[in-house]
C-alpha cells in the first residue's frame, strides 16, 4: 500500500510538471503518459490481482504484464526514431543543397 501511494505521489508530481511545461496544444499526448502512470499505480495497489491476470494469460508475474508490452513498444520506438532521424538528415541535405544551388555564384564575389 505504501508503495502504491509512493507511485501515486511521484506520478502526480511528474504529471503536474509535464502539464505545466507542455504547450497547451500538445497536452493531448500527456493522456498517454497518465494512462501509463495509472497502470503502474493499479499494479502497485493490487499486485495479487495482476498476478492472477498474468497467470491466466500465462506470463508468470503481474509486473510482466507491464514489462513485456513496454519492451515491444520501446523496441518499435527505437527503430522508428532511427528511421525518422535519417529521413530528417536526408531532408536537411536536400534543403542545404537547394540553398547552395540557388546561391551558386560567380567567384569574383566569393
Amino acid at each position, binding site marked *: 500500500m505504501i508503495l502504491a501511494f509512493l507511485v501515486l505521489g511521484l506520478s502526480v508530481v511528474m504529471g503536474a510538471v509535464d502539464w505545466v511545461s507542455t504547450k497547451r496544444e500538445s497536452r493531448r499526448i500527456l493522456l498517454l503518459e497518465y494512462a501509463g502512470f495509472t497502470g503502474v499505480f493499479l499494479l502497485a495497489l493490487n499486485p495479487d490481482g495482476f498476478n492472477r491476470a498474468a497467470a491466466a494469460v500465462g506470463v508468470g508475474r503481474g509486473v510482466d504484464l507491464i514489462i513485456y508490452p513496454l519492451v515491444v513498444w520501446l523496441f518499435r520506438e527505437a527503430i522508428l526514431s*532511427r528511421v525518422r532521424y535519417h529521413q530528417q538528415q536526408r531532408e*536537411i541535405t536536400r534543403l*542545404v*543543397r537547394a540553398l*547552395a*544551388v540557388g546561391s*551558386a555564384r560567380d*567567384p*569574383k564575389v*566569393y
Partner: protein
Amino acid sequence: MALTTPAPAGTLALLVPAYNLQPWDRDFVERLGKAFSSLETDWRLKPALIFVDDGSSSPGTELPHHFARLAELGVQVVATRHEVNRGQGAALQTALEIARSPRVNADFFVTFDADGQHDPDDIGRLYEKLVTQRLNIVFGNRFEAVAAGGTGIPASRRGLLFLATAFERALTGLDLGDAHNGLRLFDRTAAGRIELTQDRMAHATEFKTLVRRNGLKYGEAPVRIRYSEESLQGGQRNSEALRILVDLLRGWWIR
C-alpha cells in the same frame, strides 16, 4: 596526346568538394590551367570548375586568387557553399546538380579532390579512354599507375585499400581494381543516372552500385595520387572504414 577519333565538342566540368582545407596552391592551379588548356586544344572541350565548400569553418584564403586565375585562363568557375557540413558525397551531388543545370550544361563530368592529390594531366587520359572505348564512365586506378612506375602508395593505405577493393567487388560486382579513388570521369548519360544519397564517404561505393544498377559501360585508367600529409589527414582514415560499412548498411536498410 594525339587525336585518334573525332571527339564531340562540349563542356567538361570539374566537380570539387572541399571541407576545411586550403585547396591547392598556386603552382597546382597553373598545372590545372595547363591541363584545361590541353583539353581544349586536343579535344575541343570547354572547361568549367564547380566548387562546393561543404560548410568549412575557415574557407581557403587563396580561393579568390585561384578562381580569378582560372577565370583568366578561360575556365567557367561556379562556386557555392553548404551552409551546414553534410559530407563529401552530399557536396559532390550538389556540384553535379549545378554542372547538369542549364547554367553550366556540362557534357562531361570529373570528380576531383580538393587536396591536390590528383594529377590534372590524368583528366585527359581518362577522357581519351572514355571516348575511344565508348564508355559512360572511367574510374581512376592508382595501382595501375604504380605498376607503370607512378607514385607509390603508403603502406598504411595499401592494406586498407586491398580489403576495401575486395569488399567493393563483392558488393557491386564491378571488376575494378581501386576502391574509393576520387578521380572519375563520366558522360551525360551517367550523370543523368547518378543521384548520390550517401552523404559521407560511402558515396564512392554507392557510385559503383549505381553504375551497375543502370548498366553503364565502365572502365579504368591509371592515375597518379600524390600522398601528402594533408591528403592523408583529409582523406579516408583507416578508422573510417568501419563508418563507411555502417553507412552502407544503414543506406540499405533505411531508404
